[in-house]
């Protein structure tokens, strides 16, 4: 019987694949790597591509698309930590900028509401002063 290893493909949003395999091909950043059981321990970044798994006792390759991520290889366990979307430094940067803009927008609205609160406080103060004035006038008469 052929030697096998366990392969898990997980993403942050859920498990994608889990099973026993005889061989797997993984799209590492610096070129595709083929993994057989008892491979030396390796950690690599992935580029978008397909992970192909040769399942135990079958000649067919099952392919699973990953849009990047990491792979950790141990002699009998392969773990693919897949990303669910394309990652790139500039895309991430743009997203970070968006998040900052949203925060600034929230703060802008804050000024409005602070102004409103301040106006309300001033109004209350003014009415209190007016009431006091009225009272004093009455007493003077």
């Amino acid at each position, binding site marked *: 019987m052929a030697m096998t290893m366990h392969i*898990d493909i*997980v*993403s*942050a*949003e*859920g*498990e994608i694949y889990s099973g026993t395999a005889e061989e797997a091909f993984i799209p*590492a*950043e*610096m070129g595709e790597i083929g993994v057989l059981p008892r491979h*030396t*321990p*390796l*950690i*690599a*970044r992935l580029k978008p591509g397909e992970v192909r798994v040769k399942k135990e006792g079958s000649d067919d390759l099952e392919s699973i698309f990953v849009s990047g*991520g*990491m792979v*950790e290889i141990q002699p009998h366990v392969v*773990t693919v*930590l897949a*990303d*669910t*979307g394309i*990652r790139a430094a500039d895309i*991430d*940067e*743009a*997203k*970070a*900028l*968006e*998040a*900052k803009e*949203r*925060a600034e*927008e*929230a*703060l802008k*609205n*804050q000024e409005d*509401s*602070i102004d409103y609160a301040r106006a309300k406080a001033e109004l209350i103060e003014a009415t209190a002063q007016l009431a006091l004035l009225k009272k004093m006038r009455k007493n003077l008469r």
Partner: protein
Amino acid sequence: MAGAKEIRTQIKSIGNTQKITKAMEMVAASKMRRAKERMEATKPYAHKMKNVIGHLAMAHPEYKHPFLEERDAKRVGVIIISTDRGLCGGLNINLFKAAINALSEWEEHGVEIDLCLIGSKAEAFFKRMGNVVAAINHLGDTPHIEDLIGTVKVMLDAYYDGRIDSLYLVENEFINSMTQKPKVTKLIPVVSTEEKELEHYWDYLYEPDSKEVLDALLMRYIESLVYQGVVENIACEQSARMVAMKAASDNAGDLIDELKLVYNKARQAAITQEISEIVSGAAAVG
């Protein structure tokens, strides 16, 4: 008979409200089930990641990644996860209370705070209380990790640049469908759980190199923790809403029962009065 008519309209309107709250309860119950499944589905990723990071840290004791080293906290970043909508009982308020407690403790020690707000309730509540550096809301029932990357990156960049010295996450913990508990956890520095069972560790081959690999891993790890928090918060929201709406429906039922008693009394009184009027009228004629 005017009283009886008014009571009847009131009963009807309460009945309508009850129908709405019942419907919301059922919707929340089914959404909660799905949210719980999603919550479970996110667990293997973070778990696997933690294992790998543990291995790495063991294999490379000499290399200290910035995320793993303790700094003096002069300024902290806080990520607060809330819901987008209300009608979920005290869920958000309890969370905000816990957050304010933590914030005021830091402030007492002269620590400055940068806030990162997830969910429109947190935005509405905290925007006046501190320095908000990032915000996101309306992630929907099925959030995607891509939507969170930017928000988390703002905080991670701040940590890299030394603008913040540690990063905390304030979230709701799903204990069961009746109980949710606010929880404040430290994300960075990553609290290393020194597991002694890892005795036969090994070094890896790295592609491209160990530093970059660790960078990418830790970034994804923090993101996945925040994502988990968001997914868990949805499960909390739905179950809190389910409980709140069940209480509302029950209360509406009680109100209707009481009003029905009053209504019947009013009706009976009117009938009695009418009979006595007829009888006295007949007596006067006779």
